[in-house]
């Protein structure tokens, strides 16, 4: 029983990172109906840039956070202009393959910046975990969870209480109707991309500072986890992205405990495949391009 609760705690906190990643992917997918394969790499470039700044200047966490977010937003906007804006009315395959090509580009840029396989990153929190009875919760994980909640809250407010939010939801609902209502779909897409990248940058920063290290696997890892979580929650819905992220975290935590680390990923993929094959109604069958 204790293990179950602890695993659930671990699952939820891991899931918070996945949820943030999934939200970033879903925002882009919702507005552009395309998967952005460069999302993880942009986050990686953001984290690497922050690491580079840390190595050069020893700057504090807040500065590094800002650097990570800015670098990711810059990378994300570059991807949007090069891979998505030109193909908006055309082939989805072209956009996704282009985003993959830039994935390669961004990863190489990052590794040129910092060639080694592992770098230390300042810790998000110096103290030990919180302990309640037999359970423990790392403060870093709690911070990530809080960040995820904050992002959701702010996101919800923006989407439902601002003019920009209406434009975003309009574009997600029906891009043509949005154009006819006088909304500049291209400008909205670019801005959503930037917001999504900012969230990604924040997530990347939280992950590397929580693990106190940066590795080149961050790009691929973020992409896989984010897309997996996004699809588990039903493609295209923001609440779904959050649910998918949490679900993925929980599934992984429990599978790892009962079946071992190798099966952890296997179960997640199996679940996704099974869900896709069964296509339950909540899996949002809106045309995925």
């Amino acid at each position, binding site marked *: 029983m204790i293990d179950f609760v602890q695993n659930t705690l671990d699952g939820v906190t891991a899931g918070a990172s996945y949820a943030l990643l999934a939200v970033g992917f879903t925002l882009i997918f919702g507005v552009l109906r395309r998967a952005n394969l460069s999302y993880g790499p942009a986050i990686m470039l953001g984290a690497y840039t922050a690491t580079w700044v840390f190595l050069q200047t020893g700057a504090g966490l807040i500065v590094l956070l800002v650097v990570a977010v800015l670098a990711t937003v810059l990378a994300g906007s570059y991807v949007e202009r090069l891979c998505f804006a030109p193909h908006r009315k055309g082939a989805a395959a072209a956009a996704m393959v282009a985003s993959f090509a830039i994935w390669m580009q961004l990863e190489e840029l990052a590794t040129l910046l910092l060639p080694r396989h592992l770098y230390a990153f300042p810790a998000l929190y110096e103290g030990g975990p919180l302990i309640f009875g037999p359970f423990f919760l790392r403060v870093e994980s709690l911070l990530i969870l809080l960040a995820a909640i904050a992002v959701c809250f702010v996101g919800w407010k923006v989407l439902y209480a601002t003019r920009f939010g209406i434009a975003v939801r309009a574009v997600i609902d029906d891009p043509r109707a949005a154009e*006819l209502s006088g909304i500049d779909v291209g400008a909205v897409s670019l801005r959503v991309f930037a917001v999504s990248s900012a969230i990604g940058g924040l997530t990347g920063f939280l992950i590397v500072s929580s693990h106190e290290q940066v590795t080149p696997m961050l790009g691929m890892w973020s992409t896989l986890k984010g897309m997996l979580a996004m699809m588990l929650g039903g493609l295209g819905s923001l609440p779904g992205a959050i649910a998918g992220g949490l679900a993925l975290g929980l599934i992984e935590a429990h599978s790892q405990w009962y079946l071992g680390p190798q099966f952890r990923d296997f179960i997640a993929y199996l679940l996704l495949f099974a869900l896709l094959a069964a296509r339950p109604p909540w899996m949002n069958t809106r045309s995925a391009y």
Partner: protein
Amino acid sequence: MLSVRELVTAYGKIEALRGVSLEVTQGSITCLLGPNGAGKTTLMMTIAGILKPRSGSIRFSENEIAALPAHAIVARGIALVPENRLVFPSMTVLENLHAGAYQRKNGFDDDIERAFTRFPRLKERAAQLAGTLSGGEQQMLAVARALMSRPKLLLMDEPSLGLAPLVVEEIFTIIAELHRDGVTIFLVEQNAHMALKVAHRFYLMEQGRVTFSGDPGSLAEDEVIRRAYLGSSKS
């Protein structure tokens, strides 16, 4: 007000508009009739900026607008109520109106009031999701939404499509009302009978070209209807 000259729009190799020319005078109701596939929707989409023409010109109040994107066209004062209505299904009626007023930023509460006065049924359903409205209500919402941008020229693509006769009558009453309020209207219609009752001028379009223009009465109504549905006898 609107002057279209030799407009050519193509999908790849297929030319949907083969040199369309027509005029819409300010303050009038102009109607475009023609069989399916004639290119009427393509013309509307081109004027609205969704499609880019290959050649030709569209002048609106002396300004060339053919190459502008859709949102810039709305900014110039042209709004399109598209075929199939196109509301935002997961947003409420009120939010749909807000979206329509996007370029106005704020200060459009009056327009919302006016929309609700004109379409009382929308007021009843203000908090309802647009996707759950009936066909007729969605049509009204689409019109109300287009009006939120205070257009000088309202384009309507088949407003009566798929609607019950009573609802169609309501729509045309509203069209007449809008005209009285000073909005210029350019509408595409399959229902030639209703359209000719309100139009000041009409055009017939077949296979990407305008084949006839005149005012109601210049051609016998059943001749018009025949050509609108079947095209002219020379094929």
